[in-house]
């Protein structure tokens, strides 16, 4: 557990963590040892000479004061170290997330990472602040007390010690048996969460079918499964908890019986037996809390596991001696790329001379957007090479590669800030005039004019206060401002009304002027602007050539566009 904590935290926290753990252990041992003084105190008080208790009581008082100081220092230190580590953890996680390849950020990651960085981290760190000290105390204090008991009477001490191996075995066993149940429950949790999302998103359709009233079987099934899984978790935990309680109680009873037997036989003084029984009772309480603390520790550990998994995901390797390209032509050389067990790009070769435009056309799922992502090195290829200016993208530093490329994505994400801030992201040191020029070239002025607050208007999280077309225009302005020699366009054409579409196309036209361009095109109008077209299907180039040439050839490409023709033809013919 500590080892995992250290790995997740990084080595710089090891000394502080070790100090705190040692402090907690010493504190717990001090508690146990202080009880040793109870024996002479009680011997005096319960015996014939209560007055003799005075000095021993003073000694016990001193021991308790010592314990108090230790406890106070260790409590505060636990909390302080906990917060320091929390800060370190956030920085470590933040830095790591920034280095992970964009390809890692799939659909489900947003939820996963935000839970992890929010409550998850806090919970993992609560090990330090709240759980470690009680856990150490629950183990160390009883052991110290047993040692004290052994010193006073080896028979009763041994009887108490008998609990140790059983308790240890139960802890290990419970951890193992609950791990499986916990994992299953976690799975079911995820499954049910997915079904809930589905259920919510399908509401309009479900209601249309008049099915809102009845229980939606897909969801209800997963909820029932979840209940079953949580029942299994209980069943997995219960034997351990009952076993632990039984063991502790049985041993206590054993000590009680043995103590009574020894006292009756006169083998030991009454005061000693009673003191040892008081000590045994002191052992039992912390041990009984073990199953409680153990459960909490296990779930904090699960959180720690998840953090560890993310932190151990390797970012794309950076070259040791980065190369800077001088030209801006692009090349895919026998590129193969697999993702999620599927070959997305299959031995594909194509090149774009500097200043030329390549349009990528093809059915959904052909791998069009992936081509752009490989150029921007969101993923690394499995075979072959992607080159910019003749240099493998893997041989460039991320900064240099990104400086070559401006991307307009299909789904534009805007940061919660003003429009100006979002455009300026393209080139943080741009002058106000340059930002405005880019905005005007992307025909953003009318949008800005419409918004209350104009330039200073907030766009909301993810740009929610702007429409799709407006967001697109902001992202074009951003790319214009960046003024990079290579432009990658993932054409967005859904969600655009004609007015927006015209504006977006204007902006795109300006963006492409004089640059090397690769564009994923869905509309013929965009393709017309390209020097060359590749038709992609199943990660391979099926056809390649000029737009007109390909249309004349009457192959897949022509078929793809002509789909829209017959309906028009019918209508025209009947008119």
């Amino acid at each position, binding site marked *: 557990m500590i080892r995992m904590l250290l790995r997740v935290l990084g080595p710089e926290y090891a000394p502080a963590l070790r100090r705190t753990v040692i402090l907690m252990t010493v504190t717990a041992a001090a508690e146990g040892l202080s009880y040793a003084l109870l024996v002479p105190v009680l011997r005096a008080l*319960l015996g014939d000479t209560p007055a003799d208790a005075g000095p021993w009581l003073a000694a016990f008082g001193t021991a308790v004061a010592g314990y108090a100081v230790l406890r106070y220092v260790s409590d505060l230190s636990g909390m302080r170290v906990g917060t320091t580590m929390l800060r370190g953890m956030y*920085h470590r996680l933040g830095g790591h997330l920034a280095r992970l390849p964009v390809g890692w950020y799939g659909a489900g990651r947003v939820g996963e990472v935000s839970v992890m960085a929010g409550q998850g981290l806090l919970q993992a760190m609560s090990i330090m602040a709240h759980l470690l000290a009680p856990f150490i105390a629950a183990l160390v204090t009883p052991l110290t007390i047993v040692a004290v008991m052994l010193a006073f009477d080896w028979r009763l001490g041994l009887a108490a010690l008998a609990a140790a191996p059983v308790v240890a075995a139960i802890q290990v066993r419970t951890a193992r048996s609950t791990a499986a149940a916990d994992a299953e429950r976690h799975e079911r949790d995820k499954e049910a969460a997915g079904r809930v999302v589905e259920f919510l998103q399908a509401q309009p359709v479900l209601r249309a079918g008049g099915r809102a009233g009845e229980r939606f079987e897909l969801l209800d099934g997963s909820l029932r499964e979840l*209940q079953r899984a949580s029942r299994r978790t*209980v069943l997995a935990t219960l034997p351990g908890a009952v076993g632990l309680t039984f063991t502790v109680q049985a041993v206590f009873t054993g000590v009680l019986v043995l103590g009574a037997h020894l006292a009756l036989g006169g083998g030991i003084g009454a005061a000693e037996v009673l003191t040892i029984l008081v000590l045994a009772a002191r052992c039992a309480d912390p041990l009984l809390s073990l199953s409680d603390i153990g459960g909490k520790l296990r779930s904090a550990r699960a959180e720690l596991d998840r953090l560890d998994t993310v932190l151990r995901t390797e970012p794309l390797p950076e070259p040791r001696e980065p190369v800077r390209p001088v030209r801006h032509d692009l090349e895919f050389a026998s590129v193969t790329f697999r993702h999620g067990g599927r070959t997305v790009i299959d031995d594909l070769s194509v090149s774009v001379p500097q200043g030329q435009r390549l349009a990528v056309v093809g059915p959904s799922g052909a791998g069009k957007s992936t081509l752009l992502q490989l150029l921007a090195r969101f993923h690394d290829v499995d075979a072959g090479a992607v080159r910019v200016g003749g240099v493998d993208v893997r041989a460039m530093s991320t900064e240099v590669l990104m400086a070559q490329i401006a991307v307009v994505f299909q789904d534009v994400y805007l940061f919660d800030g003003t429009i100006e801030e979002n455009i300026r992201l393209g080139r943080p040191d741009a002058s106000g005039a340059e930002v405005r020029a880019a905005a005007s070239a992307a025909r953003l002025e009318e949008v800005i004019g419409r918004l209350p607050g104009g330039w200073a208007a907030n766009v909301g999280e993810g740009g929610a206060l702007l429409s799709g077309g407006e967001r697109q225009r902001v992202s074009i302005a951003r790319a214009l401002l960046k003024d990079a020699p290579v432009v990658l366009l993932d054409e967005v054409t859904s969600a655009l009304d004609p007015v927006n579409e015209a504006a977006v196309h204007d902006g795109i036209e300006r963006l492409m002027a004089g640059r090397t361009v690769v564009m994923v095109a869905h509309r013929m109008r965009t393709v017309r602007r390209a020097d060359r077209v590749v038709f992609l299907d199943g990660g391979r180039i099926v056809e390649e050539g000029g737009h007109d040439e390909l249309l*004349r050839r009457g192959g897949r490409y022509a078929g793809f566009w002509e789909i829209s023709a017959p309906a028009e033809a019918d209508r*025209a013919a009947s008119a």
Partner: protein
Amino acid sequence: MPVRQATATGSVTATGPAATSDPATAAGPAAAAGSPAEQGMAGLLRPYAWSFAAVVLLQVIGAVAGLAPLLAVVELGRALLSPGPVDHGHVWSVVVAGAAGLFVRLVFTAASAGIGHVLDGRVQLAFRRRLAARLGHVPIGWFSRRRTGELAKVVGQDVSAVHPFIAHAPGELVSAFAVPLVSLVYLFAVDWRLTLITLIPVVLAVALVPLLMLPARTREQEEFDAAMGRIADSVVEFVQGIAVVKAFGGSGRAHRAFLTAADDFVGAFNRWVRGVSQVAAGMQLALSPPFVLLVVLAGGAALIATGGMAPADLLPFLLLGLGLTAPVAALGHGLDDMQAARRAVGRIKDVLAVRSLPEPAHPVAPRGHRVELRGVRFGYEAGREVLRGIDLMLEPGTVTAVVGPSGSGKSTLVRLLPRFFDPTHGSVLLGGADLRGIGSRDLYRTVSFVFQDVRLLRASVADNIALAVPYADRDDVVRAARLANIHDRILELPRGYETVIGEEAGLSGGEAQRISMARALLADTPVLVLDEATAFADPQTEQAVRRALATLEGDRTILVIAHRLETVADADTVVVLEDGEIVERGAPAELLARNGRFAAFWRSHRSALADETESRTESLAETESRTETESQIESRTEIETHDGVPRGDEAR
């Protein structure tokens, strides 16, 4: 006995008297008189009242029985310390009684924990079902204002967070007070003076509690919560914007924003901890066993020396005195969890309290399917109207196209027909009846829609298409799929129509939209609402939408947010929406002739479209078989010269 259920979100202990969630209170008549949500919670818990009582009773018996072995030690002490010969029989019966007490404790607390957790599972299922049922009835428009993830969290994590209230709180809380109470009575009977002394640590700890409730502490707690919220926001931004961040060089901004939020949070956390930690550590110390023992021993020594207390009477205080601290400890620890659970309950109640669009008491059946909007006004929030007085008649057998700039209220307007929202003023009539007076089943049998945001279920393709018509024939499903231009693609899937989407195969956005088209076509309702933007995912989807519009002629009432010039030209009526008002309406030709807003829109659209059409014409003109298209272009030219617009029915 604390059996702990390790949940994914972390197992939490809550041991506080939270009025709203303490089942004893929630199930009581007082709560039942409250809001519908409270009634919901109380109603949910009422069937389990007896089980809850059993959990509490078993736990209390077990916990009190747990005192038996301690009392056995006390009795053993009295027997051994009493002058004269020791009564062996008495000693052994005391030992047996102690062992029996332990056994009772083991059995009863195990039973209580077991029942409690099983009960917890049942209650959670009931909560989730209740939430699902509620979510199945809230206005669809309500969803658009919320993130699905957030709602999923309510159904998932928030219900789980209630776990401690149900599984732990009743038993543990009651025993945390019952056991000390019994001990206290016993101790008072033994020696009232030492009892008072034994209570000193408890009093000390309680005296520190107000220090935790100072305004400064509360403020720090609030800052802490706010900082936590900012972290969550910045993480979402960080992750969602990662592609942008990376592509625009130096992950600087978002990364920094995250780190700033994190530092703020740690700062707030630190201040909070610093404010609380010394007091908390002080409380811990006051309640710690060595300190309590020291107080008891010091008091006991004094009383034995001066007050003539029997030495044997010291024993019960050493053994039971420590237990007196339990309630304070219970109150102190788990406060966070309790608050977290209370917040979770609050969110659950919020969802349960959302009112559904009222169902009519006496549903009216629509006569025909003419749709009429009368003086419709609508705003998502007060003071900001999106629709500002819409009067519109949609005749059966006609296509009405809505055009207008983004933000003009088009999407909102069309969403009133399937009653995603109710208008704030005015009314929407279907077949002469107000939508609010039509039963939802009738309504959805009449109106179907295809919007952009399509989500498919993780179920077979066939089930996905037949979602709205659960008992549809396979032939009908296939026919709808063919019409929606998705049949061939389905056959390419590993198991055709039986392929489970999301598990065995994924579909692209355009393909998903075509499935959604197929759904609407299968539902075959007389009123269809369509957002044409859907079509632009890819040419195949575009064709599907166009084919659907062409096929669905006859008596249907069709309302479409038009994106393509052809659709606008083919529509019977065009409505130009601007800033929530209809600024122009009429047949396309009429509007062009009027040379107003629509004409301007048309020209801007045409110029945007010109080169595409050109490109198509040029390329196609060279292929001889395609000359018909030119006549289409010509007919479009006619539009521009205002000679006449091909009406939809003429063109067909």
